[in-house]
């Protein structure tokens, strides 16, 4: 007889071990697909692993040693957030841990006192405040449908959440663009190629620190796509298909739309959260008795 805490623990450990592999692969496929969309051959699918491996081979170079602390904290709390999520923990707690980890990245960028990192940090913060309300609405919406904030309960509810929360789902996809650092919302830093603020938040990180940031991104991918899974938790097959389609859409948007200014990012994210999110939740709230199981 396997008890629930044991399953949670196993899930968390599996996440910690496997998420970087999955995340790295996703990043690799992302780059390959992007290249194909641009009519290029593109790097090998395993390229992200080569990159990170390379970064760990490089010299340890910093502006201040405190950078090490912030980057390590960023990675650790990203893992904590993800592990909590996959062990079926409380959605809100996961979101707060997730925010915490990002704040560490921002602080790391501030610590170096370089103009590029600084603007990157400010923009990263703007991104955080742009997506946070929508992510909270996502959790609240799931609660309204399943009566629980617990990820395990949400998955096991067997309710087709997507049918109740279509607006929230679209809103989530839009903030997902911000989170995946995809154009048009790749304000603070973008994954490949450089932009007008050099590399934004990551400008002053190099070597193993940059490698850790990259790994944290992999964990983040898996977590973010895990949330997409929740919407379709009633059927794993559909869920996986939805994740693939959603991610493909993100890549398509990335390659077809140019970067916007932070003002537009903030406004559009809030507008989406404020309309799609709230309206969807509001409808759900007042029709509780009518359409809810």
């Amino acid at each position, binding site marked *: 007889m396997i008890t629930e805490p044991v399953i949670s623990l196993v899930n968390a450990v599996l996440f910690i071990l496997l998420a970087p592999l999955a995340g790295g692969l996703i990043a690799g496929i992302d780059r390959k697909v992007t290249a194909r969309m641009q009519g290029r051959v593109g790097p090998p699918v395993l390229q992200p692993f080569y990159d990170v491996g390379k970064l760990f081979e490089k*010299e*340890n*170079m*910093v*502006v*201040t*040693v*405190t950078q*090490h*602390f912030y980057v*390590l*904290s960023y990675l*650790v*709390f990203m893992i*904590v957030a993800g592990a*909590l999520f996959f062990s079926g*923990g*409380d959605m*809100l*707690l996961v979101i*707060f*841990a997730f*925010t*915490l980890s990002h*704040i560490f990245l*921002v*602080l790391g*960028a*501030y*610590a*170096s*006192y*370089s*103009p*590029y*990192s*600084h603007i990157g*940090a*400010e923009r990263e*913060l*703007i991104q*955080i*405040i*742009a997506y*946070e*309300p929508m992510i*909270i*609405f996502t959790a*609240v919406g799931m*609660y309204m449908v399943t009566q629980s*904030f617990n990820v395990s309960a949400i998955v096991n509810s067997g309710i087709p959440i997507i049918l109740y929360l279509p607006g929230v789902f679209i809103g989530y996809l839009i903030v997902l663009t911000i989170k995946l650092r995809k154009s048009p919302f790749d304000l603070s830093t973008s994954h490949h190629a450089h932009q007008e603020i*050099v590399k934004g938040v990551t*400008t*002053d990180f190099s070597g193993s620190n940059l490698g850790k940031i990259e790994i944290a991104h992999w964990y983040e991918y898996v977590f973010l796509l895990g949330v997409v899974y929740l919407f379709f938790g009633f059927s794993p097959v559909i869920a996986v298909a939805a994740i693939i389609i959603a991610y493909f859409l993100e890549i398509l948007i990335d390659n077809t739309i140019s970067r916007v200014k932070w003002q537009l990012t903030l406004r559009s994210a*809030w507008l989406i*959260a*404020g309309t799609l999110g*709230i309206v969807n*939740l*509001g409808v759900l709230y007042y029709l509780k008795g009518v359409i809810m199981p």
Partner: protein
Amino acid sequence: MNDLVFLIGFPVIVALLMLLVKDKIRNYIVIISAIALGIASLYLLIIYFNKNTVFFDIPFEPTSKIMFIIEILLAVYILYLGITFKKYFTVALILLQAGLLLFLEMGLIPGIEPVNNLFIDQLSIIMAMIIGIIGSLICVYALGYMETYHNRHADIKDRRKLFFFILFIFLSAMFGIVFSNNLIWVFFFWEITTICSFVLIGYSRTPEATNNAFLALSMNLLGGVAFIAALIYIAIMDPSGKLFGLDSLISSGYALAIVPAVLICFAGITKAALMPFSSWLVGAMVAPTPVSALLHSSTMVKAGVYIIVRFAPVLALTTEGFIIAMVGAVTFLLASGIAISQSNAKKVLAYSTIANLGLIVACAGVGTYNLMWVAILLIIFHAIAKSLLFLCVGTVENRIGSKNIEDMGGLIVRMPKIAMMMFIGMAGMFLAPFGMVISKWAAIEAFITAPFGLIFIAILAFGGSFTVFYWSKWMGKIISVMRHQEVVEDTVKKEKWAVLYILTGLVVGVCLAFPLISTYLIEPFIMNIYGVTTRLSQANFAIMIMMICLLLIMPFSMLFYRTGSKHVSPYMGGRTMESEMRFSGTFGTMRELSLSNYYMEKYFGEDKVFYIGTLLCWGLLLIAGIILAGVVL
């Protein structure tokens, strides 16, 4: 009972001593009495934490007479000041208030003899701990601060005797508010705190300080008028005077209690500086920093929310309660927004205080049992973290001579210990797994089951993200490393360090001990009122404690990295940067690098947002007034 009387009476004695003694002896007396007050409030905790509500019967008549005389004397004093400074609005208010008071005392009260004038329950204990421990710590801190303050501002007359006199009188009045069951007494202490705040804001007697002091006074007097109106209403409704007891009023049911409850909550809104009255608290920041820490963040403004929390059972699930909650929620959202646009550290703290008080009122106004739990939690966490931040800012201000956040760049190098403490204080305000986030989390979970909860959740989600923004950018400012700067913090006094260390310890300690606080103080209190209580799940407790421990361990990772890293200058687009943060610009000139944060004036400009807030909140209050008039008629 003696302990309550001691806590109210002892500060008065100390205050009188303050008027007499010289500088040196003052230091000893303040430190000793601070320790005494701290121990007394801890003693209170140990004795009463497992007894629910305990009432004490202090004779009403003689005490009330004395109070009445003091009130009239103070009214005359303010009348005099108001006329001297030509503040006729204040004069009108004080005349109105004095008239109502005379009517109450002469016409209605004679003949009544309320019993159970003092009481203590878990909420009083929590408030007493905040006043007794944080309050007295701030008094100790003020010793060193005021000395430096007068050294720096030679033009301001040294009135420290008066300063400490008022400070201790204030502590006594605060204890009075939280221990009084008799509303007439609550009102007396309430007015004392208003006047203490007035004197302390105007301490420097510059024109700005005087104006702001009168602004604060008139807004609080407005609340006072509402309070007195509530008392008169009670006296008319119930000539026996039994309803003057807080407990009997609250349990008397909606029909009787709602009018005084709303009136007193209005007084609470003015005291807690919610919109539309927030301007007085912002203006109050001209006062010396310990005053801001004590009166305007951790205790006096908390009296405003305290009284609203007390009346939460009456407000629960009523339209009036919903409107009051909306005032709180709107304040939370807009004040958080304004805080983004501010670069003056004390103003950021002020707006953050206003925002958090708004959130507490939003919880208390809706008033379901789990929201009540959140409200009390917020009171505790906010008091500790915010007073620490105020004192840190005060110390920094004394050292570097500026309250501007933009001047705090590289504080981690210049004042490493203070910067660390500020860091912890700020983390306490907005980062998981510290206090305020625990509360935010619980608030979301509680609002979701409350009527119209969705509105509050939306406000909380947006307001919460504003909060993240303004704290993070400030944090980023102080932790940016500029190596050329020298350490300037070794001149800070010993007792100041002691106070700061204790407060920092409390910020972390209270988060670790919060399951205990919840189990032994808050939950029984709520159980008592609602018959049900709330709690976070044990598993989540455990996870949070693990996160705190992880956070505490993380900094040690730096030991591991101390060696083995090559240091380079920040990337400047290829420009060489000297250690003094200067780089070669065009035409061979050397230019200084300076970075500034985003303030988003266009979106969160103070005037614009405050205007919106004032309109909204006056509108809400007006609706509440109309409903109330309907009930009365």
